[in-house]
């Protein structure tokens, strides 16, 4: 990958991205669907787009998924 492609990645934005507020509002439903093998990304494509692009929300999602699947 050259620097132009890297720059493309740094600057990429997905129009489907719903933003942090909506993604967080739906995060518990999204995590439960993933934990039970349901197609959450298909049900909530805007949340999937956001979690792929937003570092902190992606991190929160990973943490929640681990908490749920660990049966803590």
């Amino acid at each position, binding site marked *: 990958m050259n620097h132009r492609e890297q720059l493309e990645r740094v600057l990429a934005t997905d129009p489907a991205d719903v933003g942090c507020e909506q993604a967080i509002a739906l995060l518990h439903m999204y995590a439960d669907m993933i934990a039970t093998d349901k197609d959450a990304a298909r049900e909530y494509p805007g949340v999937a787009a956001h979690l792929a692009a937003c570092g902190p929300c992606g991190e929160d999602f990973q943490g*929640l998924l681990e908490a749920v699947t660990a049966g803590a």
Partner: protein
Amino acid sequence: MIPHDDDAPVLDPASAEWISALTAAGRDREAGLARLHGLLIRVAVHELRRREASSAVTGAELDDMAHQCAADAMLAILDKLDTFRGESRFTTWAYKFVVLEVSSKLGRHYWRRHPTTLLDAEDWERLPDRFGVDPGEHAERADLVKAVQRAVEETLTDHQRRLFTAIVVNQVPLDALVSQLGLNRNAVYKAVFDARRKIRLFLIANGYLDERRQGR
């Protein structure tokens, strides 16, 4: 977990049990609170350990922070208990508050480790690192960095410029910025999102990037 139109939420049995314990009186409620608190602490410890490498919060400080996160999450959960509609399991809904508390507290904690990080210092020399090192194309890369700099100066609002610089150029974590500036995560993300889009459009309009490579 099944969508429904009725006013009364339809809860799975385990979630219904939680709600009935937490809304009970006397000892049942005490027992429910204690059981929930125990789970919240476990989740907080697990989450803080998962993020230990990047946060550098360890040992007694980690345990202490876990207890604070669990306590604050508990307050939020009890405060919002009547908004739980059973769209997920109760525990998933409850754990979300812990995870969010952990992020928020780690965002604040960042400044204890990096007290001298300046938000507004524009260290453009660092920008090429974000694009990877490509020794054969030094001149072209310098050109591109200049173009990004121009886009930042000419197309962004002061607010967008400040947040883009802090996050993309200076690499301050988003939640650290949230805590420092008293904004919410969505507002910071949105400003940087808009900044990215504007810079990209500027670079396309000026022939630095290819329009056809739309989106991802």
